């Protein structure tokens, strides 16, 4: 009797797993699928109440959104800002990450705490004063301003993540390189950096995406030079529905593509950065 019981229980377990997994997939993927459909749907089809799923598709609204509504400029701005953010945060943050990982020094814990605190702090409170400061320096409403603000957001995370990645690469490799003829800095660049590259690249892309998605600070700091999310916030809601969906789709796609490439590092990175 025992022997007959076990396969049945297993089968039920399997079915439950499949059902739950299926529900999860539906829950998470449906909105994405739907907006993709809507982004490409012909407006007439959209406005026909009876048609649940549009049958005609077009890339027309993409064209219009891009060119007539100047979305391409916003996209470009977003790319520039995100790129700058990535650059700044790494140039400033990577050395600090190395210091945290490889050295023991007084004040180390304080600095770590500082990074964590900055991460948890509502940086939107900085948006207003930053605007004033930027206006004084003359970088308000420029990509530089937004990038600088975004870097402040992303910096602590980059420091902690790169510190963790570098720690995972044994010091022995650097020391061996130092014995065999390299200086410390050379050993870092030729050995550690090469080994850390996949993880660091993933976190760089991560920084890019955070900047790409950021809407609050970007909206406040820009007037004419808007990033895509800021642009959408200010214009899309006033335009017809189908443009909204196209815009939403455009925002989502690059991020999704990037994430697909770094998916292996996802859990580790978010886990670390949010601890």
């Amino acid at each position, binding site marked *: 009797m025992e022997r007959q019981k076990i396969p049945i229980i297993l089968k039920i377990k399997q079915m439950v797993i499949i059902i*739950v*997994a299926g529900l*999860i997939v539906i829950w*998470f*993927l449906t*909105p*994405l699928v*739907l*907006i993709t459909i*809507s982004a490409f749907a012909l407006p007439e089809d*959209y*406005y026909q*109440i009876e048609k*649940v799923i549009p049958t005609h598709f077009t890339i027309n609204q993409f064209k219009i959104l891009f060119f007539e509504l100047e979305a391409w400029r916003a996209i470009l701005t977003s790319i520039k800002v995100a790129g700058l953010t990535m650059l700044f945060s790494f140039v*400033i943050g990577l050395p*600090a990450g190395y*210091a945290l990982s490889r*050295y*023991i*020094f007084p004040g180390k814990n304080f600095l770590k705490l500082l990074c964590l605190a900055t991460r*948890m702090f509502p940086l*939107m*409170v*900085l*948006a*207003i*004063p*930053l*605007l*004033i*400061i930027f206006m004084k320096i003359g970088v308000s409403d420029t990509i530089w301003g937004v990038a*600088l603000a975004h*870097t*402040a957001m992303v*910096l602590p995370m980059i420091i902690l993540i790169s510190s963790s990645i570098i720690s995972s690469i044994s010091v022995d490799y650097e020391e061996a390189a130092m014995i065999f003829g390299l200086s410390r800095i050379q050993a870092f660049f030729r050995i550690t950096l090469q080994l850390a590259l996949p993880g660091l690249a993933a976190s760089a892309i991560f920084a890019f995406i955070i900047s*790409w*998605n*950021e*809407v*609050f600070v970007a*909206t*406040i700091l820009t007037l004419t030079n808007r990033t895509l*999310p800021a642009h*959408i*916030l200010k214009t899309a*809601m006033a335009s017809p*529905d189908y443009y909204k*969906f196209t*815009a*939403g789709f455009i*925002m*989502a796609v690059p*991020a999704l593509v990037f*994430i*697909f490439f770094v998916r292996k590092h996802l*859990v*580790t990175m*978010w*886990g670390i950065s949010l*601890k």
Partner: protein
Amino acid sequence: MISFSRGEKNWMPYLLFLPVLIYLAGFVGYPLIKALGIAFTSEAGKLSFENFITLTRDSTFWKALKNTLLFLIIIVPLQVILAFLLALFVNSRFKGYMTILYIISIPLALSDVSAALMSYNIFTSHGFLNKFLMSFGIIETPIYFFGLGLSSRAFWVIVLTELWRATPLVFVILLASLQMISKDYFEAADVFGFSSWQKFFYITLPLTMPSLQSALLIRTLFAFQIFGVVWLLSGRDIPILAGEVYYQQAELNNFQLAATYGFIIALICIIISWVYITFLKAKHLELKK
């Protein structure tokens, strides 16, 4: 750890950290002080609580506070529970769990703007939900979720959207901590004859507690800053604290009030963090005794 801890290389780590410190001082520290300054400066330019008084007299402020809190109280616990269940499910490592993991992680890459638009796509009058219901004859005319006077309906759409968008954030943290629980504990429990429930209550739950608490804290702090989803789906019909910061600055050009709103958000966050830390630390000390 290389420790050139004596001699000339003593200053190296500090040098490496210097850019960070300068940057943070300039772009976080200084603006922070400035924000404080603006919030406490009256129109006339003198130090005063004038802005705060104006704020408390404005009914919108109280509405914004109420709404933000409401969102928080409803969304955050739901998220944490949902995320925990998802994490437990994925952690059981069934066949194909990696794929499910990636799918759950997708919203991590999306901004609240995208999420809001996706919700709009579904719930708007010509959206998929209405079309779907009408094609099955369940309703005759479309149900309106957005628009003036429909803020209670929009509220729930926002809750749903946030649930969809932000649960993966908590999920990832919890999964990471679940994965760190050594299998040995469970194997020992099996040897001692623990049931699944017992294993959960005596091993899983206690060991994930710290992670749960920090996830709760983080989500709470972020929930106070809710902006994009609400603004896109309901404009100012549902005022929220962050939205008011934006409104005051962008539309009314009132830097003082905007900064004051921002300050209040920051203050609340600091207080909450403080309470959490003190609460947690106290517990830890008790455990150590």
